[in-house]
């Protein structure tokens, strides 16, 4: 007997997809009203997601049957497209909603020009809809489609300022993305050829460690690594995120990259789980260490505020890779990884928004000449600092909890007798110091002596949203238990 509200879940899921698509379509149809539609839509979608997750948590009883699956148009798998809702997707949906809402509010202030508005809102709403579908779809090919939707709208958003740098960044972003999607698609095709089904659950049931699976795993993983800007395939990220308008960078670093990583995680938790070998874990872990070091060093080198933040994304994703070998030892670690991505997304988005405000006020984001504005805008510095603390993984933020759990897992492997575990522990611990170093770079100028000049006036939204989001990121620490318990409601995953 399912608890009250459970019967509403399927409708809720389908409704969410429908709603987000509808908003996007409407905004595209009436660009004149795009921002109003966008705002209302953002509120509606957020509310919907929150209600949905509440119902889910209330209904989701034991991890085995927690997932709710909806067949679109009544076509069951293998023919039909399945929507798939479980703890993992709920968590990411909520994350998307929070960041999305914040970004929308911020954009109200940031995108003021009428023309820009018409271009921005539809694209952004498409992106959001794509993300929602990505997290909901339980079908390999469908995942490819949603990935494409997300990347195309993201690319468009990157290019939308229209400067040479932006467009060029967008082109590189696009080409890399298509490359990634194609190799992902190739993998999908191979799997389909082997088993004749696309539905992840069915695939998971059928896969065993065969050559084709291995080939598919390699193709899909590599493609997704490219899309998730995992070291050393990260080079497209800095120019794209650096030259995109602030809200877009926020969404890209916060959500889009996370989306790709979500897919990697999803696949390796389910379909490819039997393929994993210790050597594989170590390789990924080493890539992670490389990401941590390289990204941080580049962040310490970069001269522009937004590129620093972009590189810090590269570095932070290193943690996720480092967590892979830990997952092989203690499968439960994957929940920590997801929690980490959530916290990171929140923090990173707020940093980007703050950076956007500063850039808008100063007219540029060259760190060297940013001191005056930083001094005049303590609120932004505070947001930068607060989110930065979360990135460093210091208390009392979500970052700290995530770091704690990661470190716990790492030490667990060491105590379990793995020698290379020491490396993972060192990386997890030391990454915080590097993060501290580049966060300090961003914040320190505001403490230097010198004249303060607020620069361009910015709207109220731009002034307060970053701080608000940063606060959320900081307080996410309190949601640690809740998140982990929600994630526990994921069938199949350990």
């Amino acid at each position: 007997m399912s608890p009250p509200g459970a019967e509403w879940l399927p409708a809720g899921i389908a409704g969410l997809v429908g709603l987000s698509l509808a908003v996007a379509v409407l905004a595209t149809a009436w660009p004149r009203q795009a921002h109003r539609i966008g705002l209302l839509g953002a509120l509606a979608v957020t509310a919907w997601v929150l209600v949905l997750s509440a119902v889910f948590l209330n209904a989701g009883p034991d991890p085995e049957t927690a997932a709710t699956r909806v067949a679109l148009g009544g076509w069951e798998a293998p023919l039909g497209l399945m929507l798939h809702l479980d703890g993992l997707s709920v968590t990411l949906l909520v994350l998307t909603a929070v960041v999305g809402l914040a970004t929308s509010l911020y954009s109200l202030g940031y995108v003021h020009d009428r023309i820009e508005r018409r271009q921005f809102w539809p694209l952004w709403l498409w992106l959001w809809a794509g993300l929602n579908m990505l997290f909901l779809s339980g079908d390999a090919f469908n995942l490819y489609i949603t990935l494409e939707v997300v990347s195309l709208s993201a690319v468009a958003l990157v290019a939308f300022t229209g400067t040479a740098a932006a467009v060029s960044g967008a082109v590189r972003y696009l080409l890399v993305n298509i490359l990634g999607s194609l190799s992902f698609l190739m993998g999908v095709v191979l799997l389909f050829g082997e088993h004749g089904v696309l539905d992840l659950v069915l695939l998971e049931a059928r896969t065993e460690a065969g050559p084709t699976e291995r080939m598919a795993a390699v193709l899909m993983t590599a493609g997704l690594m490219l899309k998730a800007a995992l070291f050393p395939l990260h080079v497209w990220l800095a120019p794209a995120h650096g030259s995109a308008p602030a809200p877009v960078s926020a969404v890209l670093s916060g959500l889009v990259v996370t989306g790709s990583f979500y897919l990697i995680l999803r696949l390796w938790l389910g379909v490819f789980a039997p393929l994993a070998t210790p050597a594989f874990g170590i390789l990924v872990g080493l890539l992670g260490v490389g990401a941590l070091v390289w990204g941080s060093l580049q962040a310490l080198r970069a001269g522009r505020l937004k590129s620093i933040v972009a590189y810090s994304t590269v570095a932070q994703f290193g943690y996720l890779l480092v967590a892979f070998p830990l997952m092989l030892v203690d499968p439960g670690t994957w929940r920590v990884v997801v929690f980490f991505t959530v916290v990171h997304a929140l923090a990173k988005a707020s940093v980007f928004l703050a950076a956007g405000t500063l850039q808008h006020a100063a007219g540029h984001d060259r760190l060297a000449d940013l001191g005056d504005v930083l001094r005049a805008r303590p609120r932004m510095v505070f947001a930068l600092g607060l989110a930065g603390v979360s990135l460093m993984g210091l208390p009392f933020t979500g970052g700290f909890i995530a770091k704690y759990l990661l470190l716990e897992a790492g030490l667990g492997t060491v105590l379990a007798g793995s020698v290379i575990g020491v490396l993972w522990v060192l990386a997890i611990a030391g990454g915080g110091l590097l993060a501290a170093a580049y966060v300090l770079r961003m914040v320190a100028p505001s403490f230097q002596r010198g004249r303060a000049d607020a620069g361009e006036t910015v709207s109220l939204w731009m002034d307060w949203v970053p701080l608000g989001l940063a606060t959320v990121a900081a307080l996410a620490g309190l949601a640690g238990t809740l998140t982990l318990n929600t994630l526990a409601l994921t069938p199949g995953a350990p």
Partner: protein
Amino acid sequence: MNGLLETVAHTLAPGLLYPTGGAILFALGLYGLIRRHHLVLRILALNIMGSGVFMVLLGVAARGEGPPDPVAQALTLTGIVVAVSATAFALALVVHLTRLTGHAVMLPGPPDDDAPVEDISREEHHADGGPADRASSEDRPA
């Protein structure tokens, strides 16, 4: 020429022909994407990769006796649609970029972030890596 192809086709089992061909196309496309500097060529390279994937997919559809698998064909069609739209979008971007910078090559990568974006002349010979740039110079629009 045709004869040769047919002999190849007959010698190779159909089950193996399509995957192999697809893989080859995929690899070729990747190579083109890497080596070519004119953006249009790169987009074409990507399309070649795409058709490689679809070729494999069709091979899957054609596998076994009887009528081909409708699902696979449906997937192929969808995939093509997506690919076409992506290509169109990419081309639009390239056109825009060419309007802005006067040539259809990419600006250099991240490390330019201290340099003003407008003057790409300084970075130009860096663009996508030194000497290769010379190769790309002749396929710029005159």
